[in-house]
Each structure stands twice: as C-alpha cells, then as structure tokens.
C-alpha cells in the first residue's frame, strides 16, 4: 500500500484486497447498535449535573448524531470507488478529496472508539502497535484500530502541512 498527497486529494494506492476490505468496513464499524457502552462513549455525558444532561440529550445529541452520520455518509460515498474494480482480488486505488479530510478524521475516530469499546481493549493493548499475528476477531479489531489510526495520522499531517 502506498499513501501520498496528489494536488487536492489524498491517494491510497496499491491497496491489497484485505486492506481494501478494512476500508470498506469503516462506515459500518461506526455503528454502536447493540453496544450500549459504545453508544455511551460516542454520546458521552457533558456534565455531572442532571439538568444539563437532560437538556443536552434533547438539544445537542440530535445535532451530534446528524454530524456523525453526515461524516460517515461522506466516507461511504468515497469508498464506492473500491467497488469499481472488475477483478475483485486485484489491488486498487482510493482518492480522498482534501475537502473530505474532516469527515474522514471524524469517521475514523468513531470507528476506532466503537471497536475499542466493543472489545474492551486496555490502554496497554492499544499501545502495542507491533502485536501480531491476527488470530481472532478481537485481534482483527485491534489491527483495524491501528490501521485507522495510521490513516488519521497521515490525514492530520497532510492537512497540517496545507
């Protein structure tokens, strides 16, 4: 896999089928459905005061849900490029318009938080970037978190350098 900036886009090329599939899974990985702890993490309490929390749930939380959904939809639209390959097992390329960078950062963070909460990864596990091989669905979850984090770091570097 190669990743670079090309004019007004971020380009991820030479994507093998495995990494392409992990990218395809980003939008669905943001869903906290059936995972109350993940839901609680995405929509965390703003205060210890009940009155503030009640107002927040009514007025702010719907806005946050809309924000997260819009970001995830933008990423899902970009990812449709990965479905255009006629040969499903060949390597492919993904172009991310630079104006979608914020949506990608947000969606990757949603996915990382939901996966981390779902599998209850400890801080030690999250910092173990050399862990391998992938032997279970949980190991794959940690790999996803690290891979999505790598993409976040790249996007941050590129938007930071203008």
């Amino acid at each position: 896999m190669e990743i670079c900036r090309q004019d007004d886009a971020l380009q991820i090329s030479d994507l093998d089928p495995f990494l392409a599939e992990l990218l395809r899974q980003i939008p669905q990985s943001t869903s906290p459905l059936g995972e109350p702890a993940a839901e609680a993490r995405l929509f965390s309490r703003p205060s210890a005061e009940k009155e503030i929390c009640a107002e927040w749930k009514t007025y702010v939380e719907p806005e946050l849900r809309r924000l997260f959904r819009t970001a995830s939809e933008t990423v899902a639209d970009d990812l449709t490029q990965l479905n255009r390959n006629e040969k499903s097992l060949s390597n492919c390329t993904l172009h991310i318009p630079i104006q979608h960078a914020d949506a990608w950062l947000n969606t990757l963070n949603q996915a990382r938080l939901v996966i981390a909460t779902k599998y209850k990864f400890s801080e030690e596990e999250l910092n173990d970037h050399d862990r391998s091989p992938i032997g279970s669905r949980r190991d794959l979850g940690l790999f996803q978190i690290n891979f999505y984090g790598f993409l976040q770091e790249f996007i941050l570097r590129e938007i930071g350098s203008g």
Partner: protein
Amino acid sequence: MSAVSAVQSEKGSTSTVETPARETETRGEEELDVPWQVVVHNDPVNLMTYVTMVFQRVFGYPREKAERHMLEVHHKGRSILWSGVRERAEFYVQQLHGHLLLATLEKVV
C-alpha cells in the same frame, strides 16, 4: 421571563408582596455569574496529534499551548481548557464532543 420580572418590579414598588420574586431573580443572576470550566478527560483511543489539532481548532490555541494541554490530559487524566460563562462553556463542550473527545463542563469550586 424578563417581561414577567418587569411587571413584578413595577408592582414591587407599591407593594411588599413582590419582594420574594426579586430575591429569586437575584439568585438567578448570581448563578449566571458562577464561572464554569471546560475539562477534557483522557481517552487512550484518541491520537495525541488528533487531540492537539482539536484544541487548536476549537479554542484557537497556538500549537505549543494545545500540546501542553494534550500532554496534561495524557499524563494527569484531565486538563482544564477554558473557564468562563456557562453558555460559552457549553458551546466548547459541544464542539469537543463533535470531535469525539471526552469533555465535561464543571462549576468552578
């Protein structure tokens, strides 16, 4: 609410019955004056570079100041990013939640 208070104030000038209403209003103003602080809590999932970028964007802090707060969150578990009136504090916490950071607003003790 302000219209009702005005009527009560006018009545209050001719009658002592309205005095308690004035006291209530005064307490409300005092509550508004209580400073609030925006606190960000540690979350091992969020990248340090990402948290720094969010602090720069939300508060307009220079990179060095944003990094100082990020490191305080990382090492001490929390950092007070801002303090002031409640409405502004709520706005900042909403922005931070929009970036998926763990943030709360707390009354300054």
